[in-house]
């Protein structure tokens, strides 16, 4: 019984990691570089939503704030690509990496200035409610996190496999030059992917801030999500989600059954094991990417 509850809360946490990992993978596919500010995007998305909804700030109804904050984060993602990343075209990937790390510092600093450094919770319609299921008491927020993540992943999957734009995004990541030859406007497509990564980060942030609380350093859990993305193979969206779930589930069980101090290390120990035994990740696509 207890274990089942651990599992559910682990899955809910894992969903948030998974969503951030999705963002990592999206950007990696588009830009061939890792956006180390993805966790901070999440934190920013959470604070933007808090700023719009919470009564001590603007106090908009949640459902009205939602589309606004999603649009804001889409714009942030798009502009980061447009104004910053695209300038680095042709530079080495480490330039992009260092830049995104710096961007993370800036976002944390700015968020601290605007919203302060106290942890804050997103006021939302589901707060404090729970559902009883057999003997289980499940926070409605945990359930919502799992459901939303599932729907989002299915949505993204359908988008990438069924729509022309989604196919074009895949194409651009598999063979950028050929994508140009086929008349795919690769740069615009990449901008859209950054916008999408902003939206996914925002959703992750909303879910995280609804079931817990955020402060400007929350984005640093992006490191765990990065581990999740690597465990998932860093190339596939379902892999990223699965990696997130694995890390999320390991954590509470490790802290229950392993001595404190060691339990924190569990996700990274798994990461290390995966890197040693399956260097391409648990869910890697078998063939290496061309070009």
């Amino acid at each position, binding site marked *: 019984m207890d274990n089942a509850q651990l599992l559910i809360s682990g899955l809910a946490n894992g969903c948030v990691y998974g969503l951030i990992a999705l963002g990592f993978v999206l950007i990696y596919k588009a830009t061939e570089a890792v956006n180390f500010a993805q966790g901070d995007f999440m934190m920013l998305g959470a604070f933007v939503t808090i700023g719009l909804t919470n009564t001590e700030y603007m106090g908009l109804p949640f459902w009205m704030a939602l589309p606004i904050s999603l649009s804001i984060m889409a714009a942030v993602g798009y502009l980061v690509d447009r104004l910053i990343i695209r300038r680095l075209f042709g530079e080495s990937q480490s330039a992009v990496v260092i830049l995104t790390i710096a961007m993370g510092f800036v976002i944390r600093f700015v968020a601290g200035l605007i919203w302060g450094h106290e942890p804050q919770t997103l006021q939302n319609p589901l707060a404090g409610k729970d559902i009883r299921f057999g003997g289980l008491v499940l926070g409605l927020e945990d359930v919502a996190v799992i459901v939303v993540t599932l729907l989002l992943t299915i949505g993204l999957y359908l988008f990438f496999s069924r729509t*022309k734009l989604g*196919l*074009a995004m*895949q*194409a651009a990541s*598999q*063979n950028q*030059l*050929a*994508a*140009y*030859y*086929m*008349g*795919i*406007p690769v740069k615009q497509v990449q901008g859209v992917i950054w916008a999408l990564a902003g939206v996914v980060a925002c959703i992750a942030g909303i879910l995280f801030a609804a079931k817990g609380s955020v402060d400007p350093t929350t984005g640093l859990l992006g490191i765990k999500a990065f581990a999740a993305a690597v465990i998932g193979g860093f190339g596939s969206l379902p892999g990223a989600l699965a990696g997130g779930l694995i890390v999320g589930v390991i954590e509470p069980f490790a802290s229950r059954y392993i001595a404190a101090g060691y339990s924190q290390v569990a996700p990274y120990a798994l990461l290390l094991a995966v890197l040693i035994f399956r260097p391409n990740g648990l869910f890697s*696509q078998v*063939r290496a*990417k*061309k*070009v």
Partner: protein
Amino acid sequence: MNDPILMIRNIESFYGPIQAIRGVSLDVLEGQIVSILGANGAGKTTLMKTVSGVMDPEKGRINLNGKDIQGLEPHEVVQRGIVHVPEGREVFPLMTVDENLTLGAYTISDKSLIERDRELVFHYFPVLKARRQQEAGTLSGGQQQMLAIGRGLMASPKIMLLDEPSLGLSPILVQEIFGILRRLNDEQKMTMVLVEQNANAALELAHHGYVMELGRIVMDGSAEDLMKSEDIQNFYLGVQEEGARENRRWKRKKTWR
């Protein structure tokens, strides 16, 4: 019919400080197959990249149907009717044959036109139809080349730029693919610019030919004339007299400038 559909005038292209195209001019008439021959590094691929907008020329004009297109973005060039089938096929390896074809039609929004073109591709390349759901990366080299050409056709182009479609294929496959290109030209009136190392096959197929050396056009003429030309015979068709081919190449090159 007799105005060139594609007119290239004094194009110069650079890779950073390195000049790869040194003032190339050529004409392509509607319905023609024009072949560009030349040794490795002559600048053939660079010329095609410049036409398709993947590279911008430093100088010169590229004119399609009376409109200048130099410096346009690649997708704008595709929309205007020029598609580039790249050297080395460059299919999308993790996508199915069908998805590759769908992407070839990225600039087309008319669904019925896309399906018509897909049927056309399957008509000329039945093997692709049989393997619609196979991942492109797992096709054989020849099948990938067919897919690359088919994917190009999906853009409903007026002109196809084909960069070394014979690369790495067996002589029989080269014959098969060139046969299909000829039928596309005959039956669909497809205008083609064909870059080739395989001068024999290319000149047999083409109406007109250009020879490139070190970023310049050094010779041009009807395919028949080129086929008869001694220079071509020696350097590209492999008909050589006994002895020092290298020396000869040197001398001839001098006479071309």
